[in-house]
């Protein structure tokens, strides 16, 4: 499969990244070779093979429903770049992005 600049632009949009016009060509070529390496996997016969998404040896141990206070608001807010009255401040959201 051939990876095009359009695909890369679309994936960049999903990833909230941007590449300048001079970078995009180089990046597309790189991604093309990486994805084609990854594409080797399509030659493996996986008919009837289960997926492994985790290698854990137990079930989730549930937490009992008990409320606890850990950090204070001030501790949590101390790295926030822009804030007001205890809120995190962001430029107005006109509508949810195309993803939502």
């Amino acid at each position: 499969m051939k990876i095009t600049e359009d695909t890369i632009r679309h994936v960049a949009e999903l990833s909230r990244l941007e590449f300048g016009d001079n970078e995009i060509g180089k990046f597309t070529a790189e991604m093309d070779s990486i994805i084609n390496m990854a594409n080797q996997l399509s030659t493996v016969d996986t008919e009837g093979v289960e997926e492994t998404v985790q290698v854990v040896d137990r079930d989730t141990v549930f937490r009992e429903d008990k409320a606890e206070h850990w950090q204070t608001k001030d501790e949590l807010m101390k790295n926030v770049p822009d804030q007001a009255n205890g809120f995190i401040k962001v430029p107005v959201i006109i509508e949810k992005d195309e993803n939502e």
Partner: protein
Amino acid sequence: MNFKSTIGLEVHFELKTKSKIFSPSPVTYGAKPNTATNVIDWGMPGVLPMVNKDVYRLGIMVALATHAHILPTTHFDRKNYYYPDNPKAYQITQFFQPLARDGYVEIEVHGKKKRIGIHEMHIEEDAGKNTHGTNGYSYVDLNRQGVPLLEVVSEPDMEDPDEAYAYLEKLRKIVQFTGASDVKMEEGSMRVDTNISIRPAGQKELGTKVEMKNLNSFEHVRLSLAYEEKRQQQVLLSGGQIQLSTRRFDEASGKTVLERVKEGASDYRYFPEPDIAPDHISQEWIDEIAKTLPKSAAERYDDYVNKFGLKPYDANVLLQTKESSDFFDGAVAAGADPQLAANWMNTQVNGYLNDHRVALADVKLTPEHLAEMIKLIKDGTISSKIAKKVFAETIENGTDPKKFVEEKGMVQLSDLSVLEPMVKEIVDNNPQSVEDFKNGKDRAIGFLVGQIMKQTRGKANPVVVNKLLNQELASR
């Protein structure tokens, strides 16, 4: 041309837990911004989710109550999207292996019974809240981030807005009576999204669907769906095409307004959440939860009408909320006469709650109080007139009715050893009344009762006095 509508509903319920689904932060309403949060809710680097057991327990209750098949192994997945109220930029939800599938709810519309299928239900985390300022900024509060949600996705089985309305009513009642959620649309603990498409009668494949989100009430659901049916018909009849889109219901005009057109499916890049091990739901646990499942509204209705002999109207009033039904059941369990308990619940108690704009949980009256008061009325200890005074005291201050009646000397005089000689004496002293009674003048009894009331300063039990007088007069 005739059209057929196809309607599906997605309903989110906030599950009633003390702490959040993946963090032990408290679930609170109205707390100061970002005070009910911790590093997990903030999606700080390095944090991991910790699954709250009660979220599963409450979800399983709803699954049981809607006859859904609970999956033996469930797993969480990530839904990826960027938004300021979504700190990790992914929502932990269940996409591939939800909690339960294939349930149903039975509705009755225009006298016709129908089963509405539930496609699946899954548990997931809520997002925080954005408040839009007027100065070009939005303000993010993460207190709601991580509040547990149960999303119930119906099959597209509904064919008109009335069915959708009936489904919502029924589903709300079912969930409400499991106790899993507060189901209050005005507080956001129940939220409804709808999907509707129409197609010409006879056409097999479904039309293009339009989605409507965040409807404020069941009535808005009905109105917006009805409006959409007409709008879409007009579009098709005039040769137009329906766009795959999201619309919003405008309350003021009663119309739906286009929000945005969807270009293809959204790309949420779902994949299995690697931070949470699989959750195996054992049959033993399901059985254990089933044992604790409260009676449904339908079962309770059956009890009220067929076992207790209540009027259907009274039964329905009691069943408006789980709280009032539980309260009534508690009073009956404590020995109250069901009909009297129902009367008191539906008139005095509800009247008080309405007048004072409070909830049942907020008043000091207990089911035991109510049962005791009804017993006092029934055994003649107090009159119903006195009972109203006792009720006012108990609901206001939580005073024990029996104690209150005794302390205030409100006990009705029913003691035969006191009343019998008194009746004899009064009758002896009023031969004219005996005459009148024999001549068929009923008023004579009223006069004699009045005499006894006077002598007892109103405390004599009128029922007992009447009975004794009749006996005495008849014997002369």
